[in-house]
């Protein structure tokens, strides 16, 4: 029969459970396990096309995964629940500890215990000069201890001639450990908020830009635009980028890595409002900063210039048309949509571009990504291209042929052509002509005007650019760095207390005892106490409470005076992290324990 807790009691019980280490541990393990499926099952926000493929390949499993949110793990309710609970638990644990740590920072170090010989490290020395307490305090302050010097009234009249006053020094260090721990955990909260800010306030856009063309930072110009929940089109700062050139390099040494990319470099002109136009370079690891965004070179490919004339010889289409690479040798596919021929008479061409073409029994394909022997393969359709101008999003890289008929030759075979740069063919049924390149008169005029030949290049490259605006990234970085600093402090700061007391002032020098206490594992404590004893004394009289003979000053190896069997270190567990994560109310005050 359990006692009734009542509402407040139950709430307190649940809160205690939630903020306990066990729960945190459980949630951490759960978080790790919960993150795994997202790396095994394709994710919508990483690769939506892969999700579609996966659904087709796993018709039975996919609906179940769908229901469980496995295609969008990191935004799923259960994953969110895990990390939100974890953070609630973290805050519930860390806030009370922060309050306690604040008090601890401002309070004096604990009083010197009455029986120092019971501490794990203990030495007795004869002080080598005047005022050992003052000197001990100075040494400890230099070693970044918080020091409390308590002098007591001198017994008798020994105080004036340089003899030591009675009293003690209590010092402690290692608050940085707990502070670092708190900074680490609170920085993780900050990091989570920064991530949330990134999700809400950032936008990401993708645009394909053939060499010689450009884009402006407007939603309409982008091929794809993914805004955060709090982003509107008005938030886009106006700037424009023109792509002057795109240099590419591929591995040319014949071997296993032939055709691997080696270098991509885009030269651009940037126009920002209020600023002068400037030239800049975008490379794969070197984005361009403009208008509060970063512009990345995310991909590249070829945009063959296709020129179509109608039956009267009027140019109805003449522009670089991006074909998207399908493999590492840039075998590319694309679509040409010619609206100019009028409704019902629109033309569509679909096909492939091979930068270094080979046609053999395996079919036409490219064997090298650079353009060594380019070939444009096209078939054509006539009819209605569909909703191109309705403002609805249409994939410009797909041709909807449902209301189109395929162009055929006189013999009824499907019409298809293979063109090299500069080639032109007549379209069937007297529809006009199609050319791989700009019209000859345009090329001639451009050359006559002194423009470089690259401006009328029949096979220019395009750059796939990603534009990203993310106000959360700097806070995320700051909190990450803070978290790491806190982590290092919390793992490697030793927590120590050191006490010095004057035992007697008779004779030439005062007898002084020095003692140290570590919290958690601390291999350096003995050295620390030894160093302090050496700094104070002419010679160590006793290494420990067990009364071992004192070694001459400086003669003992570090750690040689370690006391054993007198008092076990009052540590509860094994760990350096001990006591840090326990609920504050359950912590034991070490000093209290020592005084009893």
């Amino acid at each position, binding site marked *: 029969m359990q006692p009734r807790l009542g509402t407040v009691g139950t709430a307190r019980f649940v809160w205690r459970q939630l903020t306990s*280490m066990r729960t*945190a*541990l459980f949630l*951490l*393990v759960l*978080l*790790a396990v919960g*993150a*795994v499926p*997202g*790396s*095994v099952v394709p*994710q919508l*926000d*990483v*690769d939506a096309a892969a999700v579609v493929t996966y659904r087709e390949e796993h018709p039975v499993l996919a609906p179940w995964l769908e229901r469980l949110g496995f295609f969008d*793990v*990191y935004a799923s309710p259960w994953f969110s629940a895990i990390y939100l609970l974890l953070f609630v638990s973290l805050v519930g644990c860390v806030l009370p500890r922060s309050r306690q740590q604040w008090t601890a920072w401002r309070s004096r170090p604990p009083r010197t215990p009455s029986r120092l010989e019971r501490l794990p490290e203990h030495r007795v020395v004869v002080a080598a000069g005047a005022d050992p307490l003052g000197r001990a305090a100075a040494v400890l302050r230099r070693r970044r201890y918080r020091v409390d010097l308590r002098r007591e009234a001198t017994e008798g009249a020994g105080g004036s001639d340089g003899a030591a006053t009675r009293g003690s020094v209590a010092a402690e260090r290692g608050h940085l450990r707990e502070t670092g721990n708190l900074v680490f955990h609170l920085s993780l909260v900050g990091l989570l908020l920064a*991530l949330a800010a*990134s999700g809400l306030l950032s936008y*990401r856009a993708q645009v394909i830009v053939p060499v010689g063309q450009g884009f402006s930072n407007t939603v309409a110009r982008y091929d794809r635009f993914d805004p955060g929940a709090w982003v509107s089109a008005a938030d886009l700062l106006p700037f424009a980028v023109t792509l002057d050139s795109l240099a590419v390099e591929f*591995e040319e040494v014949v*071997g*296993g*890595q032939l055709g*691997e*990319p*080696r*270098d991509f470099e885009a030269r651009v002109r940037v126009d920002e409002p209020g600023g002068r136009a400037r030239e800049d370079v975008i*490379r*794969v*690891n070197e*984005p361009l900063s403009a208008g509060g965004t*970063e512009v*990345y070179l*995310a991909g590249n490919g070829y945009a063959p210039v296709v020129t179509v004339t109608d039956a009267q010889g009027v140019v109805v289409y003449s522009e670089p048309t991006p074909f998207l690479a399908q493999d590492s040798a840039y075998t590319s596919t694309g679509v040409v949509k010619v609206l100019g021929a009028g409704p019902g008479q629109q033309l569509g061409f679909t096909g492939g571009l091979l930068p270094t073409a080979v046609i053999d029994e395996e079919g036409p394909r490219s064997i090298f990504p650079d353009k060594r022997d380019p070939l444009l393969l096209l078939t054509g359709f006539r009819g209605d291209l569909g909703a191109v101008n309705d403002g609805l999003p249409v994939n410009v890289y797909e041709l909807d042929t449902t209301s189109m008929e395929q162009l055929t030759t006189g013999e009824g075979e499907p019409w298809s052509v293979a063109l090299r740069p500069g080639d032109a063919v007549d379209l069937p049924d007297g529809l006009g002509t199609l050319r791989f390149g700009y019209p000859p008169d345009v090329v001639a005029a451009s050359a006559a005007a002194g423009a470089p030949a690259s401006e009328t290049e029949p096979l220019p490259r395009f750059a796939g650019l*990603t534009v*990203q605006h*993310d106000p959360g*990234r700097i806070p*995320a*970085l700051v909190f*990450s*760095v803070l*978290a*790491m600093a806190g*982590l290092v402090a919390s*793992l*490697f700061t030793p927590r120590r207390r050191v006490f010095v007391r004057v035992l007697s002032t008779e004779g030439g020098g005062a007898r002084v005892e020095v003692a140290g206490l570590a919290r958690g*594992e601390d291999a350096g404590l003995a050295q620390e106490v030894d160093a302090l004893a050496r700094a104070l004394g002419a010679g160590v009289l006793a290494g420990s409470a067990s009364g071992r003979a004192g070694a001459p000053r400086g003669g003992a190896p570090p750690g040689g005076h370690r006391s054993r069997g007198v008092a076990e270190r009052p540590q509860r*567990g*094994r*760990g*350096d*992290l*001990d*006591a*840090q*994560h*326990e609920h504050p109310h359950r912590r034991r005050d070490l000093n209290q324990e020592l005084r009893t």
Partner: protein
Amino acid sequence: MNMSESLAATSNVLVYSSMTVYVVAFAAFALDLSGRGRTVPAVRRRAEPKALVGAGAPSRARGGTSEVQDDEALVRRRAAAVGVTTTWLALLLHGAAVVTRGVSAGRVPFGNMYEFTLMGAAVVTAVYCTVLLRRDLRYLGVFVVGPVLLTLGIALSVLYTESAQLVPALQSYWLVIHVSVATVSSALFVIAFSANVLQLVQERRERLVAAGRPPRRGRFMERLPGSVELERAAYRLIAVSFPLWSFTLVAGAIWAERAWGRYWGWDPKEVWTFVIWVVYAAYLHARATRGWDGRRSAYLAIAGFACVLVNWGIVNIFFPGNHSYAGIG
């Protein structure tokens, strides 16, 4: 054969040489372990080390129990010392292999899975040798050199890739920062894993001994430190490695922001790096939790290491993502 090809070939020869020396080191460390802690009569004990070392035992004429112990201590030191010396030699050859590989391509040698693995194995040995300078972890020799040998074998047989230039995505100084810290951190995890496994074995022995049923097999464990000390050694290694892994994560995020325009995108490699971080964080918390003994937290550390293995061996090759630089297939 041009300069860079001959350098790459030299690198391969050096890898094979270092493997040969590693085998010697492995054998020496194994001998060191096996030659210890026999609870057999003094005479037999004396005969064995002699046979193992092959050199004359100077104390034979003098006899006496203490002499025998000295004799054994001498032998023990010699096997372990041979192990340490040969490990250093192997590290030298192995390091030279990494350097020539890098020089052959004119860049840092972590452009593909083979190079990363070659480099990672060298760092494991380097970290182990560095730790040896400060602490006597010679008992771990077998469990460090063994995995290194295994890793090199896998690198040569499965992962081997021709030396070549970097793809543009990897042309960044972040490659040096991110990958080298990841390698050092992984190396520490490897050694900590060995200590954790030994800790569990030792703990089982200790339980059996306490129950009055000492196990017959695996006597060499008797000369290893107790489970508590093994646990501490593993903890210290992980405590150093965990901040380094955090740095790997953050440096990776910074680089991802430079290269791909987002600092976190749940790429499979990112996911697993995060999973490893969380599991080791759980380990550190478990160690500080009341009611969790060293054994249970060791299981978490071992799970963390399993994730490190998955991240290295499975994610690059089988999960498509932005980190597919393995260069295999």
